[in-house]
């Protein structure tokens, strides 16, 4: 440990160098959204295309007319269009594959081709699936508790204060929940980065048959926690800054898009909305890049593999970016020596990928 590269610039560099990952993700999201919106577009077109009443949605934007369109849709045959909502789960499934691939490309410099992204995603599928389950549990417990507290706080405020001060006080509670959510997300992001990082390490061939994803994931929790703790300020500040940057981009472009609603053309609104969504996605990938920089600067300590034949564990891998350990840095903690020793006495190494 090591050099402390700038997370923002380093992360941005990684994101831009691996731009196909970002673009593929964006294209999937856009494509799915439009694919599943096409039936709705067709239904709306059937109502409005040949009607003079739709003039109030052409050179103007009359909310009553818009509401009438959706009222008609809700009452018409087959109008509920439940399929319209399917784009989000399908996108999430794809995103589930694209994220590990993206992290893999960020860490290895492998060109971010779609095939590479998806193959790596499939390779890491079960690990990320488990991480997601664990993160959902943690999110539910922590944020659920905070949500309950927020309700209490909100009731407390509501009973005593009204108007803008009440709004700001309740907003403060929500901001705290948001900050905690961001912290949790940062931590699990790091777990994901370390998981992919761990996958870069090569292991004895005989261990291949002993893949145990849950143990590999478990092994990443402590380094993620340690890295998060030791680099808390810059990591958290970077994460929050990029989150706010993404949200600001969406809010500003959405506002500008709304202001173009009354124009008799659609492309300005489309471009503005897409610009905001793209920038929001960019900042998320930027966060991933920044986290990768952080992990590469704080690599997992070299695992010590113990093979059955030689009694003495053999160090197999050098640390990817930290070839010269800092002398006064404490020994790696995440793989407890005792644990390894204990295992070595009964099991072959199981940290292969």
């Amino acid at each position, binding site marked *: 440990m090591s050099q402390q590269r700038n997370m923002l610039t380093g992360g941005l560099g990684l994101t831009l160098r691996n731009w196909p990952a970002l673009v593929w993700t964006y294209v999937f*999201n856009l494509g799915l*959204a*439009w694919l*599943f*919106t*096409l039936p*709705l*577009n067709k239904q*709306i*077109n059937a*109502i*409005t*295309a*040949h*009607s*003079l*009443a*739709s003039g109030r*949605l*052409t050179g103007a934007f*009359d*909310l*009553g007319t*818009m*509401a*009438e*369109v959706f*009222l*008609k849709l809700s009452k018409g045959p087959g109008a509920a269009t439940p399929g319209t*909502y399917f*784009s*989000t789960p399908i*996108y*999430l499934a794809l*995103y*589930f594959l694209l*994220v590990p691939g993206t992290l893999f490309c960020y860490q290895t410099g492998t060109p971010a081709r779609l095939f590479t992204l998806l193959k790596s995603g499939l390779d890491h599928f079960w690990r990320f699936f488990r991480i*997601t389950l664990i993160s*959902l549990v943690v*999110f539910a417990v922590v944020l659920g508790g905070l949500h309950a507290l927020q309700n209490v706080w909100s009731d407390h405020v509501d009973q*005593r204060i*009204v*108007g*803008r001060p009440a*709004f700001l006080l309740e907003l403060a509670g929500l901001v705290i929940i948001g900050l905690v959510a961001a912290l949790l997300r940062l931590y699990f992001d790091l777990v994901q980065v370390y998981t992919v990082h761990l996958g870069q390490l090569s292991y004895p061939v005989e261990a291949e048959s002993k893949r145990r994803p849950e143990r590999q994931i478990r092994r990443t929790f402590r380094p993620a926690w340690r890295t998060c703790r030791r680099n808390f300020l810059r990591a958290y500040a970077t994460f929050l800054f990029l989150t706010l940057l993404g949200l600001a981009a*969406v809010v500003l472009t959405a506002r500008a*898009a*709304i*202001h*173009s*609603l*009354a124009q008799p*053309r*659609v492309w300005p*609104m489309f471009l503005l*909305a*897409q610009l905001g*969504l793209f920038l*929001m*996605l960019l900042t998320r990938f930027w966060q991933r890049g920044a986290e990768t920089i952080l992990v590469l600067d704080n690599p997992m300590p070299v695992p010590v593999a113990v093979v059955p034949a030689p009694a003495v564990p053999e160090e197999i891998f050098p640390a990817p970016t930290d070839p010269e350990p800092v002398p006064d840095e404490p020994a790696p903690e995440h793989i407890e020596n005792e644990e390894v020793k204990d295992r070595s006495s009964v099991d072959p190494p199981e940290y292969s990928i």
Partner: protein
Amino acid sequence: MMAVLAAAAPVAIAQSIATNSPGPLSTRVVSYDIEARLDTDRKSLDAIETITYKNLTGQPLSSIPFHLYLNAFRPQSTFTRETHFTGGIRDSESEDDYPDEKLGSITISKISADSYGDLTGGMHFTAPDDGNMEDHTVAEIALPHPLAPGGAITFHLAFHDQFPLSIARNGYKRDFIMGGQWYPKPGVFWHGAWNCHQYHATTEFFSDFGTFHVQLTVPNRYVVGASGVPTGNRANPDGTKTLGFYGEDIGDFAFAASPHFTVTDGTYASSMGPVQVHVLALAAHPAAGPRYRDIILKTLAEFDRRFGPYPYKIVTVIDPEPGSEIGGMEYPTLFTGATSWYEPTYLTEITAEHEFGHQYWYGMVATNEFEDAWLDEGINSYTEVNVLDAILGRNTSVLNRPYANAGDYEMQRLEYASTPDFDPVTHWAFQFRNAASYDDVTYGKSATLLATLESIVGRDTMDEAMHTYFMKFRFTHPTTEDFLRTIEQVAVARGRATVFPVADACAGLTGCIADVPPVNSSLRPYIDQAVYGTQVLDYSVDSASSSPVQWWLPEPKDKNAKKNLPYLSTIYLRRKGDFVLPMTVEIVFDDGTRVREHWDGADRWKKLTYVRNASVVSAEIDPDHAVLLDVDMFNNSYTTKANGIPARKLANMWASMQQFIAQLASWIV
């Protein structure tokens, strides 16, 4: 303020301290004298009430029913039962428990009457609407001997109120207390019988006109607004103050108390004299006071010009606590608004205008809100749209932004279109299918059918009819037929309708009672369908197309040659609903000519054909957009050239929203 009012006094010298009228405006059936003490900590009130009731019924009365509305806020009541199972127009009470803080009650500990003695033992609860003896919102006092016609009885009551955490229209929220329907009030002897309905989830109120002397004791820090005019303020040694109020020619009395009110006043010089606009807005809503005052000053002017003068000397606007179920409620000379610390639309103005409108349609034209809810809420929604159109613009009276707009008339129409045909507007308020149908039909359909009627008879005729109706029936209790026949009379007089030599259209209809004789005008078919019926009005242009008459010849490529080519244009019209109404159709051709046709609308479809050297561009039913009762505006026209922009706009919004949701959701991965 009174000095200002006096300086602006009109020619006529007002005799009353409460109105600008030199004499009584109503038949004052009841006189109330109430001394009440409000416990703002316990949210309760103790009072002594003296009621003098005049028997103007022309017959002896052996019992008198009283409304005890606060007893509705109990799980056993009809109000709560209906609210729980079919929805309420305010708090839904959909949970399976009933919290203690929502319990409300009114308890008469003693009642006696001069020359009748103690009547407490003769009091018993009744349930005239549904037989629910646990309801307790109506009590009947049996008299030991009948009250003779022309006689009067003076009751003396002691009662205790427990206000609930607000559920509908009254109660408390934080330290704000709304005293609405808070005292025992006799029913109305109307059309030969007592009319004293139970309190229902969707019903409002009905009462006789009278006078009110009210003394209300509250803690010193409280600011109080009430019906009528303030008559005095006395400080008490126990840290309280006693405020006096007097109202006359009103049918109810309400008050609102809060330590957070700020006062904003204005004065309107009406045709009868000055009117004080007295706004009590929460300090947390600093913009509310001026907004309420400004819209009410403009509204007063519109109502004065259109319908007739506002005769009272004051109108008090209450800004209730946010989160309460008290906003947007009318009482005589007092109403509650609804706003927020951030309110970028005109909803503040719409609510204030609507509730002020009830001073006319409920307050003065005191229709039975249990049985003819559309006569107050519906007419009021109709006048609301017209008044706000005049003040804020037709298409911008809800929202006026460069990038988007919304008009109140369209909101009313949408409300109607969402539930157009479950109930006629004339259903009794508690007999609607559910609260949503009551809401959509009573407000939305009524406003829309009257706007359509206005387009049929003309704006001027309708304005005159509304003015006539108000001036004739103010301070009385008119019925649906009184209103409709007044419109017919005016329309016939102005030549906008003809008289049909047919039998009374009212004959055979339950409860069809009116002081106005039948007119049987040409408006009746519309009235029967729109008011008494549930027919749905939906006309459409199914198709519009043009083909060369000599279709077998090749079409010339030269534009000029095309112009000289005769085309056969065919338009198919269709009546999709069961509502029959004559319709105007406009056909536009590509040489710029416009042709208007009349269709009686009776058949299910109609075909229009034209042979001319031009092809059809568009065909539109109701080209003046006057028949707002048509549930589908989109199929009223057909253009031969498609316009894909609206669909792309809405689809783009939808897709972008889906993308945004997907990206947010990806935070869990």
